[in-house]
């Protein structure tokens, strides 16, 4: 590496990988459209919604990771900060997907068909208006933060910018003053944007949790559900940052940019959030189980006693909490990117299952599991779309750029 303070991707995403990802996206779209056409619209919208909620929270969590890293004056994992920031690129897609939800609302939200007594809050115009504003605001704030974060790093090294990035770098660093002034200005802006982003995420994503998922069971409520929702988003973001960093390291041959020690620390952070999420989940479970009251207990009975959903619940509990906790006690598991990637993939699958369990049980009334080829294709399409937006962003700005 000639300049350790600025590491550009060694190459663009190879055409083969890009084509593969696009193929998955196309297959996902195709499967979803087919489901609408052949009379399985409920299943189609169900899996669409599961993936929308999962990947939106993860994308936002990635940007928030970067903000939290700055807030805590972190120095341990600079390369991962940009990995998280790059997830901002999925937020516009996510907003478009939210507009899509409007068209599938009849299949998704039971409160549109039954009297819940909560019409003042749960009515379609107010619901879509307020959540739409939330998504737009979070997208605007996230882009503003990422742009401010990128500017001094890009500007200071703009002379070294490879041709393919030049246009974007010029735009992001327009009206550039001298280096010191820019750094100071950026620091001042970041100092305001970071708390704004963290507070907005915690508050607004808690309320999104109530709206997007808790409202699917309109007679049930849990005060902790909002915190659990954004915490899961953040936990998922850490897992996806791990996977994307390992992929980028391999694809772009950036072994020198990501040290073993840094992966070790990231592994510890994932373990910490695994314990925290587990603690939150347990806190919610225990209070409901112990209270055993009619308005709450069906939520648990459905997920723990129903043979259709119970295995999925246990899959989630084992692989989101117990398994990572056990394997991350090993130093080697955290040090080796390969093992870290395997563990992160398993956790991600369990978080997918958690979202599936949050959506499906109260919407699906048949005696078989609503997960087949169509659901698999749609889910792979979403994951590939997420990866494509991320690699696109990383193709424009440096993957790691540290003003040392």
């Amino acid at each position, binding site marked *: 590496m000639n300049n350790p303070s600025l590491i550009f991707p060694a190459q663009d995403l190879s055409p083969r990988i890009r084509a593969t990802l696009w193929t998955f996206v196309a297959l996902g779209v195709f499967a979803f459209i087919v489901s609408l056409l052949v009379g399985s619209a409920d299943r189609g919208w169900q899996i669409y919604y599961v993936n929308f909620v999962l990947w939106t929270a993860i994308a936002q969590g990635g940007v928030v990771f970067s903000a939290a890293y700055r807030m805590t004056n972190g120095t341990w994992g600079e390369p991962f900060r940009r990995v998280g920031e790059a997830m901002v690129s999925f937020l516009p897609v996510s907003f478009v997907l939210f507009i899509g939800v409007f068209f599938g609302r009849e299949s998704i939200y039971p409160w549109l068909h039954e009297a819940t007594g909560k019409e003042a809050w749960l009515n379609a115009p107010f619901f879509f208006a307020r959540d739409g504003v939330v998504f737009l605001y979070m997208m605007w704030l996230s882009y503003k933060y990422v742009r401010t974060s990128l500017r001094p790093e890009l500007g200071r090294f703009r002379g070294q910018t490879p041709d393919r990035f030049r246009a974007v770098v010029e735009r992001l660093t327009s009206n550039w003053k001298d280096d010191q002034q820019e750094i100071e200005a950026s620091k001042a802006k970041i100092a305001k944007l970071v708390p704004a982003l963290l507070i907005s995420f915690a508050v607004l994503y808690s309320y999104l949790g109530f709206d997007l998922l808790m409202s699917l069971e309109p007679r049930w*409520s*849990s005060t902790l559900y909002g915190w659990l929702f954004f915490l899961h988003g953040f936990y998922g973001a850490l897992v996806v940052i791990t996977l994307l960093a390992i992929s980028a390291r391999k694809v772009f041959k950036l072994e020198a940019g990501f040290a073993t020690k840094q992966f070790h620390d990231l592994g510890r952070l994932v373990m910490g959030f695994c314990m925290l999420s587990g603690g939150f989940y347990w806190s919610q479970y225990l209070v409901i189980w*112990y209270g055993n*009251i009619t308005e709450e207990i069906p939520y648990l009975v459905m997920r723990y006693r129903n043979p259709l959903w119970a295995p999925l619940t246990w899959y989630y509990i084992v692989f989101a909490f117990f398994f990572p906790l056990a394997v991350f006690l090993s130093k080697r598991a955290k040090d080796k990117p390969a093992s870290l990637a395997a563990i992160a993939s398993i956790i991600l699958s369990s978080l997918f299952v958690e979202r599936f369990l949050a959506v499906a049980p109260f919407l699906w009334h048949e005696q078989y599991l609503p997960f087949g080829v169509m659901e698999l294709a749609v889910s792979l399409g979403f994951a590939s779309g997420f990866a494509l937006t991320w690699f696109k962003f990383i193709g424009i700005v440096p993957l790691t750029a540290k003003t040392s």
Partner: protein
Amino acid sequence: MTEDYNLNYTDTDIDLTQSLKAPGRGYWLLLTFLFLLICAGGYAWGVQIANGIGESGKNNPVGWAMYITTFVFWVGIAHSGTLISAILFLFRVKWRAAVYRSAEAVTVFGLATAGLFPFIHLGRVWVAHWILPIPNFGGLWPNFRSPLAWDVLAITTYLTASSLFFILGMMPDIAIVRDKARGWRKKVYGLLSMGWQGSDNQWRHYTAAYVFLAALSTPLVISVHSIVSWDFAMSVIPGWHSTIFAPYFVAGAIHSGLGMVVLLLIPMRKAFKIEQYITLHHLESLAKLIIFTALVVGFAYSIELFIAWYSHNPYEQAIFLYRMTGDYAWAFWLLITTNVFVPMLLWSKKIRTSIPWLVGICVSVEIGMWLERFVIIVTSLAHDYLPYAWGLYKPTLIDSLIVIGSFAWFFFLFMVFSKTLPVVSMWEVKEQIEPPMKSSH
């Protein structure tokens, strides 16, 4: 290396052992005053034991009142130590070095104070051993499905782990004091330092044990106040049965604990002339954490209100309406103001670096956090499902003296600690000082 300190190793040893010198008249006067308050609290407890629990203001339906409020308050206070010691240690936050010893002392003494209240609350304290899980003649056996039994286990485990952490963290410093002490003090400090010589081998084991205890304490601290919160949340009383209680109690506990640490550090750094060790930067860092915890608790209050409205549960709605407009509305609004709005002043750098402002805001936080528990406990019991069963609580002189005595007891313990053991970690401060190299002189 940090920019905070411009000191050398020798000065550090001298400065930070100054606090162990013979105390002045002011110290003894304050200690005597605290002792008298403890005696007053002890007397009140004696009256309660002699005449019965009716001496306190507890009644039917408000069977849990100031004692449990104060118990939860002190357990909460005890949370700052582990946050500063263990969690910030795991996050490699350097500024903790100057303040963690006092925070750990707050933990141990907070638990020692909280531990009194279950006995005070019992009434017939002479049969307290009945709650132990030992077979006895009456065939009594604790109900292990009760969160109260979990409390006993959680708090004693936490007390054990935090005491170990406290003692372990002090060992190298006590050895320095031992080497300077004479007579009986040398023997006592020799015993406490457990033969510490500072060899490579000892340091290797020491650092490994420290990391291990830090990792063990972190989930423990979260579990303890979660379990305390479940004393309430497991029941189906409106205003108590809430899934958010565990994390929200933990955040509140840390909130009050941080406030108490700041309140103790400010006079201590002045009295012992250690302002260059416990700097304004340290206090400011603690103030920033207080902003964070204030936001968390404030957000939790708003969620509780929102879900009470959203749930469409008439009992939940009624209790929150009662809290805001009923007999204890003054306490509710005061807690919201002191706990959430007043700490928001700390966003201003000018305020969070001003000692008088910091003291005022931290006192406000302590009042707010005590009132928070009071409002949760008393309003829900005073105003549950049946209007026929409603009733109010009014504290008596006995409750009040016992609560005041508990504060005196806590501060008394802390004052004794501050004159007998090093209040700032010398070895960790030294880690942040430029090593004594030939070229640097």
